[in-house]
């Protein structure tokens, strides 16, 4: 990595490489952070290996087992259609994580591009991009998503595109702010003096330097996006049955509450809460670490 920075500890003038985020350093963030990170790793592993670890086909209907309680056959019981809840929760981790990953990936990419362009070029480009982001802010993300679903149909694609658009200004504003500060730093000026192009400076130096802060925000956004997409699925606009999805499982399971069966809705609900809290803790932890470094 070519990015260099004069650290407080290196006030003697030595130029040191900006530290990254090694696993050990991450774990030193505290037990809460470590626990949350472990939960996320576990969720990712569950999502990746879902077909191997799920005890049943998540879509397998067994009408004789409708609303079966917890047992050795069905650890979390069965839903109204007799489908194994544990298997559906495990497979639900796939859509539960894939959707937010796409939203965060796209919104982070677009947000960085827009934010850096606005900060670097300034002037009317900054004004135009900033006002555009304000305009998008004016529309609630869920509303945009429902509109997209109405136009393009339900499923994962339309909500992901809509939520990506909705989340882009959050990243864009942050990036514009910190990129503006970074642009004013001496090392950027020195590269310009040496004749480096703005594109090269941004891609090779500025963006890598602001990445930790953006990643911290993205981790937090991941939790929010997960919640939003689950809400859309809950409302019937997202992932469609019979595909396993935590949001749609809560929707399907809530009818069972009238029959005193909690697990069909409680289990996926708990998964959403755990994932959102874990992403929030990890995001905050990263942000704290970035702030400490900046100090």
């Amino acid at each position, binding site marked *: 990595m070519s990015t260099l920075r004069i650290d407080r500890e290196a006030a003697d003038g030595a130029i040191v490489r900006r530290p990254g985020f090694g696993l050990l350093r991450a774990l030193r963030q505290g037990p809460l952070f470590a626990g949350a990170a472990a939960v996320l790793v576990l969720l990712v592993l569950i999502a990746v290996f879902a077909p191997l670890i799920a005890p049943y086909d998540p*879509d*397998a*209907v067994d*009408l*004789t087992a*409708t609303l079966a309680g917890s047992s050795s056959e069905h650890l979390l019981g069965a839903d*109204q*259609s*007799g*489908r194994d809840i544990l298997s559906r929760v495990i497979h639900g981790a796939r859509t539960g994580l894939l959707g937010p990953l796409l939203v965060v990936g796209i919104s982070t990419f677009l947000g960085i591009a827009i934010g850096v362009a606005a900060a670097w070029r300034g002037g009317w480009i900054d004004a135009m991009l900033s006002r555009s982001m304000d305009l998008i802010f004016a529309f609630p993300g869920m509303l945009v998503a429902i509109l997209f679903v109405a136009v393009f149909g*339900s499923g994962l694609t339309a909500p992901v595109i809509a939520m990506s658009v909705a989340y882009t200004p959050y990243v864009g504003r942050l990036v514009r702010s910190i990129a503006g500060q970074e642009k004013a730093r001496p090392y950027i000026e020195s590269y310009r003096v040496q004749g480096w192009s703005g594109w090269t400076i941004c891609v090779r130096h500025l963006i890598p330097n602001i990445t930790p802060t953006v990643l911290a925000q993205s981790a937090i956004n991941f939790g929010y996006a997960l919640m939003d997409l689950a809400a859309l699925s809950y409302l*019937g606009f997202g992932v*469609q*049955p*019979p595909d396993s999805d935590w949001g749609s499982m809560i*929707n*399907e399971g*809530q*009818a*069972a*509450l*009238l*029959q*005193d069966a909690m697990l069909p809705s409680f289990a996926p609900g708990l998964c959403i809460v755990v994932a959102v809290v874990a992403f929030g803790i990890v995001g905050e932890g990263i942000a704290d670490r970035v702030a400490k470094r900046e100090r």
Partner: protein
Amino acid sequence: MRMLRSVAAVAVMAAAVAGCSGGSNDSAKPAGGFKISPDTPAAKGNVPSVTWSLYAEPQTLDYLYAWDFPINTVLANVCEQFLRTTPDMKIEPGLAASYTNPDPLTWVYELRPGVTFHDGTPMTSADAVASLKRHMDPELASAWGTAFRNVASIDATGPLQVTIRLNKPDALLNSLLAASPGTVESAASIAKAGKDYGNPQGGVNCTGPYSLDKWTAGDSIVLAKNPNYWDPKLAPKNDRFKFVFIQDPAARVNALLSGSVDGGYTVPSNAYGRLLNSPQGKLYFGPGTGAYLLGVTNMQGPMGDPRTRQALSMAIDRPGLIKAAAGGYATDAKSLLPITAWGLAPDRAQGYYATLPPIGQDLAAARKLVTESGAANRKIVLATSVLAPEISVSSTAIQAAGKSIGLDIELKTVTPDAYTALFTDPEARKGIDLVVTNGYTNTPDPLEFYESFVTGAFANYGNYSNPEYDKLYDQAAATADAGARSDLTAKLQEIAARDLVSIPLFEQPSNLFMNKRITGATVSSAALYWPWAATVGAAG
């Protein structure tokens, strides 16, 4: 006319009703273990007001479009028809005190004297004629327009006499005058309200035991007692009847249990357990006139091949479906209509039913049929909704059943409103092959239901067309004698069962919950047209 509905309610009860001797008032306790009766204990006194839950707000109170639960449940107490459908599914005189059929092409109705509309103006034959003719106005697109397709003229042939002349014999029209097609509204009010007729601004002005007092869009409809109601037998036992709209099933059940509403029809089947065990009130089951069906909405697609329909029918685990989707409170459906729907000839219905082929699960035979029909690699779209567990769970089970025999059934989840639109808007049905629905008849004449599969009928959603069926229907419609018409209708039933124009799933009883404060409402599906609210009064 047959109605296919997206609601989780009206309902049925075939085997159960078999024990109920087709429309009798006697209670019955079928094998399912739940008691079926059209009645609840009579009210012992009056109550000042009643609050009732509706699962949705009516889109209008215009009788032209009264063909769904919310609107009919309200309108049954406000507007009346030429004839009346009683709780035990019989047709009796309504606003028409009598009628004659001097020749196959002429029906003459003598209206009841001394009946006034809610605004105090007297009902005349001119009002009746204007009301009926609205159905024939193509610009108004009445949901009941096809009922009048054989009508040549409707005339006021006396101050209280209406004569309907037909182009060809059509006895079904007379039966349908006990349903929405026979509604009489003030002609002056229709003209005055114009396009606002039936909406919260324009309201309605009919002759029923209640008048429309206030309609707060999105919240409630309040009916007020009609002090000048013509029928003393049905003089309201309450002064004010308020309908509140509660879409969420859990919220509706909680409202019933908490006492914030006094009662409601069509409670969700997954709440039966809680409501049956509640000390706050009582859950009643009554004979219905319909069944849950898998409707074929596209006969041009893979489901157009009868072998594919047969295969899917043979793959469905109906006992499992009853347990999972209806909480066990239903029975196998052998036909598209239960025995109780045959109010026209209840003594013959059992015999008609016995001739139908049995429906059972046979996966091996079903797979063979799928191979023969070549439907294995073709996508079949099944619309579903969270509107009711009967729909969502059945859809999931049907998809799984299809998968087990090699059919590629894709679920398409739509919103409750969009689901309802499937039954009114052909555009909404585009790309949809199947839909789980509740089919029922509005009148005791089952021919009304089987009319749905006549070529070009409004409710022929899949555009099924069979000249043999059409010819037989014409013959039945032209037969005035109820018994002979029933025999012909039974033949239509046989063809519908053979061709599986819709696939029967299960029959579910109608239901009603009332808290311990009130009693007296009918549990029968006749509540769609019978002024049931008038008999609701104090329980003790």
